Every structure is written in structure tokens, then in C-alpha cells.
């Protein structure tokens, strides 16, 4: 039972406060969506993977990194696939000519397949790559700081929402196990049904079982005092929180998409964050609960968070200072170099790999 022992020892270690890791991940994500240079993107991806490999503890979320990498690869393939299917012609040389599928006349200007241009194809792959880095970052942070721990660290006002989300998250692997068990049992009845009928044969027992389990769990949580500490009057605070989150999301999107209106986006983001913090503080006052062994915040957490902020800030400023080296890149401008500022982004993203784990919790 060496695996058990390993897990046992591993759960004694802590990789640090989950919110610090999420700050780092957010920083890397901002950098990935700002930078257009494919070389920097690939190196950023490697830095994120390095951190995850170095720091992830054993546990149920261990494999989130691999899941992220897989999903990232799928995204790049789908993105290039769409270009092959629907891509618009450009002035670059034609790589290969696929047979064109003519669409009815009312699809003006759109044809399926047809000529594949080098520039368009590379552009599509790079756009897919940026998205893939985002996805791998999310996978990496989940592998390093399990979502359960992250949600446990939410402020008290979001505690109930967080607990519910945690449980929903942990239901997914249980569903998979149940599906495997049911498939195995049904093979006992002879040739398993295929297609829709086979799907129903698996889904009905799995979902019925999941529903029973969910009701059991709800009853158990109720008996254990879940949601008991909440006093009335938090509806207004809840509404404020939702509005704040929406505003922050809209602002964040506006900023990252960088389609003009930067000032408005920044105001929205800042206002949203302020409102969210205020509502959180108000709501926390009406929730009476305590936390067992809250994650401590020490110097490694500060370093991790700073790394995230530095990566984001360097990318942000770098694109303005050196648009040719870091900004959007075109095939026509030749092989992209590795500007000095990019090294700053990469270093900031990779430093958390070399921090020590904390002994005990």
C-alpha cells in the first residue's frame, strides 16, 4: 500500500494559500491573452506546466493538469479546423487547395473548404494557442490548489455558495465511477445495448442514483447545521454581489478584448471589485461561522501573488512599449524574436515552481 502512504504524507504538505495560486493564475491568464508572440506563448505554456509539475500534490485533482493540456490541444485543433472549413482567403501563398463545397446563394461570401492560405492557418493556430494557454493555466492551478481548498477559502459571505459549488464539483468524479459500475453490471445481462438505448440504460440508473445521493447529502448537510447561521436581510447584499460580479466580468472582458472603450471597462472593473468587497464585508457580518485551520498567509503566498501581478503588469506594459515584439504578430513580419521584456513575464510565471511547500497545515 505504498500509494496510500504516499498520499498520507503528501496531505501533510501544503502548497500554499489557494487564493495566492489563483492570483498567480489570473496573472498568467492576463499575460497570455495580451501577448501575441507565439514564441512567448509557447514558453509561457511551458512555464505554467513546469510550476504545476513541480508543485502539484498527490490527490484527486492531481490530473487536472493533463486534462487542461488535452483540452488545450483540442482547442488548437478545433480552431485550425474551423479555419480550414470556413477561413477567408488572404494574400499569402496557398498551401493546399481542398475541394470547395458550394453553399446555396443566400450564404453570401461563404464557401466551405477551398484554398488554404499559410498566413491564415498559422494565425488560426496562434489564436488557438493563446486560448490553450488560458485553459492549461486553469488546469494547472486546479492541480496545485484543489478547488475544494480554494472554495473553502472564500469569504464568509460566499461560504454557502462555495460549499454548494464544492459539492457539485466533487459529484462529477462520482458520476463517472457510478457510470463505470453500471456499465459493468449491465454487461452481465448479455450484449450491452448500443446507441440511444445503451445511453439510456447507463444514464437512468446513474442519474437516479445520483439524485438519491444528492437528496441524502442535502438531508445530511441540513442535519449538520448547513445554512443555519445565516440570519435574514442578506438578500440586498446578495443582489449587490451579483451585480458587482457581472460588472467586474464585463469590465474584465472589455479590458482583455481591448476593443476601444478601455476607460469605461476599467471603471466597470474597479467599480465591480469595490462593490463586491463592500457587499462581502457587509454579508460576512450576518454569517456566524468559524473556520477550522484556515490556510495561513506567509511570505511564499506573497511571492506567488506578486509573481502573478508582475506577469500581468509586464505583459500589459510590454505590449504598449514594444508592440512589434510582444503585440499581435503576423506571419508577414517574419520570425518572432524573444524581446527582453518577455523574459520578465516568463520569469515571473515560473518562479513559484521553486518555492518550498509548507510542512503541516
Amino acid at each position: 500500500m505504498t500509494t496510500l502512504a504516499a498520499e498520507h504524507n503528501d496531505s501533510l504538505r501544503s502548497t500554499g494559500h489557494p487564493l495566492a495560486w489563483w492570483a498567480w493564475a489570473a496573472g498568467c491568464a492576463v499575460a497570455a491573452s495580451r501577448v501575441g508572440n507565439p514564441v512567448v506563448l509557447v514558453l509561457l505554456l511551458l512555464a505554467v506546466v513546469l510550476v504545476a509539475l513541480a508543485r502539484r500534490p498527490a490527490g484527486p485533482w492531481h490530473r487536472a493538469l493533463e486534462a487542461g493540456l488535452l483540452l488545450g490541444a483540442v482547442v488548437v485543433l478545433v480552431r485550425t479546423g474551423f479555419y480550414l472549413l470556413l477561413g477567408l482567403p488572404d494574400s499569402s501563398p496557398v498551401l493546399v487547395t481542398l475541394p470547395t463545397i458550394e453553399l446555396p446563394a443566400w450564404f453570401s461570401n461563404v464557401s466551405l473548404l477551398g484554398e488554404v492560405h499559410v498566413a491564415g492557418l498559422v494565425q488560426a493556430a496562434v489564436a488557438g494557442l493563446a486560448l490553450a494557454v488560458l485553459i492549461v493555466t486553469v488546469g494547472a492551478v486546479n492541480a496545485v490548489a484543489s478547488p475544494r481548498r480554494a472554495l473553502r477559502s472564500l469569504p464568509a459571505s460566499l461560504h454557502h455558495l462555495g460549499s454548494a459549488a464544492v459539492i457539485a464539483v466533487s459529484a462529477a468524479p462520482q458520476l463517472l465511477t457510478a457510470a463505470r459500475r453500471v456499465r459493468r453490471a449491465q454487461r452481465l445481462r448479455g450484449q450491452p445495448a448500443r446507441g440511444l438505448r445503451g445511453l439510456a440504460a447507463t444514464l437512468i440508473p446513474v442519474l437516479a442514483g445520483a439524485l438519491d445521493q444528492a437528496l441524502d447529502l442535502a438531508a445530511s448537510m441540513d442535519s449538520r447545521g448547513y445554512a443555519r447561521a445565516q440570519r435574514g436581510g442578506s438578500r440586498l447584499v446578495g443582489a449587490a454581489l451579483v451585480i458587482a460580479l457581472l460588472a467586474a466580468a464585463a469590465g474584465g472582458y472589455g479590458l482583455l478584448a481591448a476593443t476601444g472603450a478601455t476607460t469605461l471597462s476599467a471603471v466597470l472593473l474597479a467599480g465591480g471589485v469595490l462593490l463586491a468587497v463592500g457587499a462581502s464585508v457587509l454579508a460576512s457580518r450576518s454569517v456566524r461561522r468559524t473556520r477550522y485551520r484556515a490556510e495561513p498567509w506567509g511570505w511564499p503566498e506573497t511571492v506567488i501573488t506578486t509573481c502573478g501581478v508582475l506577469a500581468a503588469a509586464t505583459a500589459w506594459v510590454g505590449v504598449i512599449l514594444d508592440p512589434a515584439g510582444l503585440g499581435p504578430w503576423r506571419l508577414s513580419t517574419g520570425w518572432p524574436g524573444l524581446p527582453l521584456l518577455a523574459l520578465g513575464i516568463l520569469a515571473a510565471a515560473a518562479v513559484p515552481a521553486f518555492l518550498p511547500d509548507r510542512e503541516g497545515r
Partner: protein
Amino acid sequence: MIEIENLSVGYDAPVLDRLSATIDEGELCLVIGPTGSGKSTLLGAISARVPHLTGGRVAGRVRIDGRDTRQHRPRDLADLVGVVGQDPAATFTTDVVEDELAFTMEQLGVPEPLMRRRLEDVLDLLDLAELRRRPLATLSGGQAQRVAIGAVLTAQPRVLVLDEPTSALDPAAAEDVLAALARLVHDAGVTVVLAEHRLERVVGFADRVISLTPTPDGATAAVGAPAEVLARAAVAPPVTRLGRLAGWEPLPLTVRDARRAAGDLRTRLGSAVVPRTPAPGEELLRADRLRVTYGSVVAVRDVDLSVPAGQILALTGRNGAGKSSLLWALAGALPPTAGRVRAGGRVALVPQSPEDLLFRLTVVAECAAADPPGESGATRTLLDELAPGVPGEVNPRDLSEGQRLALALAVQLAPGATVLLLDEPTRGLDYGAKARLAEVLIGLRDAGHAVVVASHDVEFLAQVAGRIVQLADGQVVTDGPARTVLTDSALTAPQVARVLAPVPLLSVAEVAAALAGR
């Protein structure tokens, strides 16, 4: 501590009928009754889940330490009533033992220093200190159940409500959990309300028994001291039924009591004719050097086994000894790593959770789908033989455990199987349903089937098994006639055998037959 006055509960049909009982502080109260008699409903009423979570019509009143459950939701009683269910894994909300133990205290807003101290106390009380940082997913059944009990105890409830906490455990793990409960009652003065099928394990600890008897107007209750109530109750452990048969007064509840009263009976039975099991027929299933591995773990280690027609073979061994893996390999559903299985006919396996086999919306549809070509109605006929009166237009999930097992059996047997394998079939069955299952298996044996049953339930095996194969660590450690193997050990023998040793009788039915035969 708990006052129940004229409690009636009904959903579509009435469940409980004007039930009154008082449970004093520090008592262990056992709730018994056949499946569907409303045990869970009664426990739900005590934890305020009935009616707050279930709905339904409720009349009468339940008060816990003066708090009326009509005004208090389950969460308002969290500091007073702790609830533990059958499946601990279904109620876990975190992923490490320590966090799980702290969950309730966090909800109640217990200050952190106090939280730490209570947690240490509970770790010691339930012997969990070794497990404190273990992920919940890696715990064994008995450990998980102790963690579930610990998780409600940290809130220091004065009442603990447990709904069949040992039904999924092997005997050793069940002893563990029950010993922990007995300790809670004696040392901590916690009031415990416990529903349990396998009475023989718990009745010795009980101070009071509520016995539910189903009637068309809902179940009625008999409340009193264990010996009084069990003298008349429909369900009773084997020692008590032996006492009724022999006319002992007072009625024994434990093997110790019965053994002291049994001197006379032992001499009367001294030369009793031991019933013979019929001679087995030709070999129907054979395993040679069978080995099953999962990664680096060897589940079944070079097992040789021959199963003849007309025999019920019992596989025993603790959880994780390889019983299920061996059954799946014998059924041909799990490719063995080495060795081979030869079967002289179709092999049918009913897995541990028979509901996994069933996915159609009605019993009729399930039966129709299982009919062999050209024999429509065969499954339904078989089902009626196994369990008469199963309604046809009902979803299999809404059947009782016993009826669902019968349906799974019928579905698996209908295509003409000659070998039947059952994995823990008595889980969740009451005494009545177990007796019917025993009749069914004996009927199949007499019809020339080979039957293999993996089970922990010694009392059930005493009724059916002709041969016992005990597994430990994937290997066969014992293979012999059931009567010899079951009477070998003073600790794991069925209750009747322990009372009557050295007379080799295994069940109350055998004693009755031996007495009548004289």
C-alpha cells in the same frame, strides 16, 4: 430527552399510526421492524427531517429536549441531534478526515481553539487519530462509518440517531462501530436511537426497544424493555427465537444468557440427528489457478475451485479479501490475469447493487426484455415463483429491497442459467426477506442449479450453505462442509451453534426439527 406523543405520519399511504414513546437521557433505544414498517420515518421524525424535508401529513408531536420538531428545522437541531446514515460516503462534504470532523462545528460557529480541542477528543474517543489526514476516499467501510459518527459527535449532540449504520460493513468493522456506540452511551451519556436489521449484533447493548408492526392504518409500536418486547416481536435474533422455542424465562438476548440457560436443551439434543445436505451432482463450474490483478494489487491469487450442481457454496472473508473479484471472474465478466474458468452452462451473476442491472421504467418492461426468444412471459412466471405479488406497473427503484433482488434474480435466471452467483445478497434485507431468499436458493439447489453466495452474514449462511470457502488476501484458507466450518470457531459461529456447542446444529429451524423428530 425524546418525547413522542401520538405521532402519525402519512404520505400517499399511512406510515405511522399514533405512536407514543419516551426515551430517557443516556439510553440506547433500538428501533426494529420489517422493511417498510416506518423505521426510517420514525428516525426522520426525531431528527426533524420529517416533515421539513419529506413533506407528508404529520399529526402529534415530537419534542427533543423540549424543542418541538414542528418549529425547529433539522439545521436548528444540529447542536442537539446528530444523524448518521447507512452510507457514510454519501454524506461526506469534504475530502480529508480532519476537515470532515470539523464541518459541523464550522457551521455552528464554534470558536477555533474549542474546535481543535473537541476534534482531538473525538479522534481519541473513536480511535481515529491515525487517520486524521487521510483522504476520505481511501478509508475502508468501517473507518468511514466511524468518521461519519465522529463528524456529528464533534458538535456534541445529546442525541445520536443512526439508521442502519452497520448494514454495509463486514462483521469486524460492524463490531468496531457498535463498540464505539456502546462506549458513547456508557461514557459520554449520549442518548442513542438506532435502527438495525441484524439484531443479533446490537440487542445486547439496548436499554429500550421500539418494535414497529405494519398495519393498513400505518405501523403501530410496542415500546419497552428488550426482553419484554422481543418476546412478542415479529423480528428477533436467533438466540431469542431459540429461547421462545425452548420456553426459557426470562428470554435471553445474548449468547451468554442463552448459553447459561441451555444446559438442559443441550442434553436433550445430545444425540440429535444432524440433517443431511443432499449429495452434489456433476461439476458445473471450474476455476484453475485463477488470478486477478488490478495494477500491482493481486485480488485473487491462484484459486482452484470446483462448483458442482445441487450445492450452495458460500464465499466468506473480510471486505477486500477478493470475494467480489472472484465472483466477477467466475461469471466471465472480468478477464483473469492468469488461469481459466470453465462453465458447463450459462453463468448468471447478481451484483452487490442489483438496481444497477435494472434501468427500464416498469417491472413489466424489465421482465419482457429478459424473456428468452420465443418464451414471452417466462421471466414474469419466474418472478412470481421467487416473490409472489410484485406489482407490474411500478418502477423497479420503488420496490422493496427484497422485491428488487427477486426481480434481478429473475432477470438473470430467465435466459436459462445453470450457475447462479450472488454478491452480498442479504444487504438491507430483513429477517422475513432473508428467510424467503433462503427458500428460493434451496429451491434452485434442489432443481439442480449450482449456487455461489458471497456473504458476511453467518446467520443467513447457516440456513443455506452446504460448503464454505473462506478467502483471505485473495487465497483460499478454508474449504469444507458448512457445518464443520461454521461450528469450528467460537467467535464467528452462528448464534445457535455458539449456544448449543458441541451439538452441531446451526439454526433455530434445525433445532425445532430435531426436537420434533424425537
